[in-house]
């Protein structure tokens, strides 16, 4: 959804009757929508409205789903990583232990190796999903839309005065 405040830059800058209104402007003095998704540029011949539409709920859901799945799988990798680290710490050594290599140590050794493999695989899959989500975020970003409004101003004398009319086409 885009909320637009259409006003000349001078008015938006806070002069005259617009003083006190909190109409946001960009650094060039152009009016901006409240949510910053559109800017309005007014000159003597046309009004240019540039806006960026919101992502669709489906797009947001897919991106969030992929990123969430990536984080979940990455978290699983972290679990296996930490478990493998603990098990490895129980058997790894550089000094003489004065202990025999028992089936219990062999089981810990095997489990640590397996879990390190699981961690690597989970990190790879989780990372790939996160990269995919990041790429999709960039690729599916809605493109900026530009609407140009041409004002038409007319003036005609009337009895005792004049009539001024304005129309916009776009």
């Amino acid at each position: 959804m885009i909320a637009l405040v259409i006003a000349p830059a001078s008015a938006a800058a806070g002069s005259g009757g617009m003083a006190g209104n909190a109409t946001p402007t960009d650094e060039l003095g152009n009016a901006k929508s409240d949510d910053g998704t559109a800017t309005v540029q007014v000159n003597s011949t046309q009004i240019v409205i540039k806006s960026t539409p919101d992502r669709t709920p489906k797009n947001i859901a897919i991106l969030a789903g992929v990123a969430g799945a990536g984080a979940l799988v990455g978290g699983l990798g972290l679990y296996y990583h930490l478990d493998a680290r603990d098990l490895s710490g129980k058997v790894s050594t550089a000094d003489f232990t004065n202990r025999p290599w028992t089936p219990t140590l062999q089981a810990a050794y095997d489990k640590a190796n397996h879990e390190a493999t699981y961690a690597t695989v989970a990190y790879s899959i989780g990372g790939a999903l996160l990269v995919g989500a990041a790429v999709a975020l960039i690729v599916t970003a809605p493109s900026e839309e530009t609407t140009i409004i041409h004002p038409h101003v007319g003036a005609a004398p009337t009895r005792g005065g004049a009539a001024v009319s304005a129309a916009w086409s776009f």
Partner: protein
Amino acid sequence: MRTPTLGLIVVFGLGAAACRPDVAYGTYECGPEVACPEGQQCDETSDLCVAPPNAKGFTCPDGDLEPDNDITTAQPVGTLTCVSTARQLKSCLENGDGLDLYKFAVPDGCASSAVTAVLASSIAYEELKVTLTAADGTTVIAADTECASPSPNDARVTRCISAPVAASTSYVLRVEPTGSGACGGACAFNRYSLTVQLGTH
């Protein structure tokens, strides 16, 4: 955005790889049936897990006093007093050697005597047992049991006998393989120490 993410994957991947066990050579003693960590081999001379090229075959450094497989050739434990000091004998059972016999005599006049025998061997090779028999070498008087105080070294297994003995009587201690832990015959040997002591019960 892609580069940092790929970097994270690489970092985590390397981190996970770093969590693999790393066991240096010569840090563990050989386990049951010459078990060693992956990429290592039991050096049957030192009982240590080492790099495969450095692994040597089984030796009997203290000598195997053969023949000692029958009552006439049984090795003497030595002269024991009624309350003796512990006498330790070191030997081994090589592949194909199924029996070592040791004989001892209880002196005259010893009252309420008991013999204590402790057999200590490596867990890496075939299991051994010790049996106390009469002088004929076959009549079993006592079989070994688990020692009340297990070996402080996990790489050694100890079996104990504590049995009353009569004065002026000869006995034989039989050391023989149990048949288990022999790696299917590939490690059907072991080094051992046999400690014999007379006391009272």
